[in-house]
């Protein structure tokens, strides 16, 4: 069972949000990798090869969109599912993210943790 656990990378600098999401996703049977800034997000993604990445935009050291671009440049990162999960609702950012290869752009406040979990399950073909 342990071997088949899908890996989710959460890049999020807001501690409460990170904790609530990480605990819920873990409870749903995923393995969770936590990155608290953009640089870590790129580093951990390329190191651990997660099945899906939830990426915040506004983070210390490197913003999420730069991290997205960095990951997409890597051979492994070309096709990995990256979901932008942010509280920045700016149409220019949405366009930029989708152009740079984000799978989708979600507004964090609109997405309860169980909805995010459900989305991940559907995405990764669990259930």
């Amino acid at each position, binding site marked *: 069972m342990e071997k088949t656990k899908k890996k989710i990378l959460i890049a999020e600098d807001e*501690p*409460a*949000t990170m904790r*609530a999401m990480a605990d819920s996703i873990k409870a749903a049977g995923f393995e969770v990798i936590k990155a608290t800034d953009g640089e870590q997000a790129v580093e951990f993604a390329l190191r651990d090869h997660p099945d899906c990445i939830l990426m915040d935009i506004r*983070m*210390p050291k490197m913003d999420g969109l730069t991290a997205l671009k960095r990951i997409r440049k890597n051979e492994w990162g070309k096709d990995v599912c990256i979901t932008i999960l942010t509280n*920045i609702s*700016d149409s220019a950012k949405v366009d930029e993210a989708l152009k740079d290869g984000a799978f989708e752009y979600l507004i964090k406040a609109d997405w309860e943790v169980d909805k995010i979990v459900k989305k991940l399950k559907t995405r990764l073909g669990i259930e």
Partner: protein
Amino acid sequence: MDILVIVISLVAILCFGIGLFLFIQTKQLKKTFTKKEQEMGRRMYELAILKELGDRIGYSLNVQNIVDIITGSLHQFIEYDVVSYMLLQPEKIIFKVQLEESVSRKFIDDVKNRMMNSLSALLNQEFKNDQIDEVLVGAIVVDEVEEPVRSFFNIPLVIAGNVVGVLTVADTKVGLYKEEETTILYKITQQASQAVTRLQEVIKTEQGKLNAMVESMTEGVVMTDKDYRVVVANPAVRKTIGIEDKKDITIFDFIDHLEGKFDIRGKLEESVKLDKMLITEEVPLHERYYQIFVSPVKSSLGIKGEEIIGAVVIFHDITHEKELTKMRKNFTSMMVHELRSPLDGIKKMVTVLEKGDIVKDKQTQKEYYGLIHQNSSNMLDLVNDLLDVAKLESGKFQVRPVPNDLRKLITESEQFFQSSAKVATIMLDSVIDKQIPTEIQFDYSRIGQVLNNLISNAIKFTFAGGKVTIGVFLHKKGGEIKKEANGACIAWAPTNNIAELENLPDCIIIPIIDTGRGIAADKISTLFNKFTQIDPVLEFTGMKGTGLGLVIAKGIVESHHGVIGVFSKEGAGSTFYFTIPI
């Protein structure tokens, strides 16, 4: 907007000046009139002409109009079959003939030849027949009338010492023009010419003043006459469109250099046609943005009322305003994000707690409550910061300075930050001058807020292994700051002369010296500004934060009548300092 009003007002003042001048002229003439009663009739006539001349000139300096007035009324006084004038124009000669009696074509040609000869003699220049633009008015030409020119009188029209044309009366009768008639005609033309000459001088002076004003304006101004010939193009407009060195600028230079981004010719025409100011909101030119006003220029003195005499285009640089709007927008969206993020975190935690199946043990619950508490405190701090900024902006920010122990506050602040300095492996130290008084007037919690902000920033932006020093020393009015700091064992020497540190009164100076990354010179000036410091700080450091802390710190220090500032060099650390006057 303002500039446009000034320009139009100047034109109006100019017209008023002309009116006033004429008023004085007429008054002087009236004096002469009372002295010589026997010449009353003649004078009356002269005055009538000059008065009319004056009124007309009020809205036009056109010599032809003036000569038309003279020729239009001359018949009341002098007898003639034909009165005519020739006026020199740039490309042609206007030849206007007013026939009181019918004469033959031969008669007119004779007059024409005589006038041309006279004009050639006066100007020492040959004129060709095809240069002449002839207009006949009044009675009709009848070739059967074979009477030749028997009486003829010719006077030059002189403006400002230059011959501009000739005026002629001619008749078929013999010996009509004796001394009396010729004297009067001379006088009239001479006075008209003098009036015009003086007016031109007045206008030249006024135009000089106007030009000087327009030249010095920071807004780009270009004025054209009715035919869109460029009359004025100030240095600002030359710079704006990139024709600083060119002489004799024409409207085509503008058309070429505006590269289709603004249809100057079209707008000028539209503005004159509609008699209305046109505003184009945002025109990008050479990496800057302009708001462009196009307006007709009117002369308000004239018989027909207002008359459009040209148009003006004003280029108002709105690049800065645009940047400010952008910053304001960024600020607002950042604030929304900064409030929404922790609130969303709280909401997500509460949802998870409520479900009860994920967080089961007491310890995890405690951790959750801790995070919720942290987020709500952060939000509260942010809201308080926003409130402080709002108070600062509305002038309602207040501090309560009472006698307090500064040493105690410094020590407390230093101790408070020791743990976070340790985590970041930064050495935090304070050096307090023994000379500072035990009690100083200041608001304990507000100055504490300033210290906390500056110390936390210093730690945040200093690399591991670096050092942060809080210095406190006494400054005497006129004393050398470097010496005073060194005397108190504080290694700080302000690197460049900053106006804020000159002429300081007796005060305590508190520098917070770090060995951090430093700040680029162009970012320093905007650090204490509400909108502008946010982006640079974030871009440069990757650190999160609203940047309101420095704005509030500045407000607090200034409320204590102190100064706040920074010395920094990129890569060589920063020193933020503030003063408390004693």
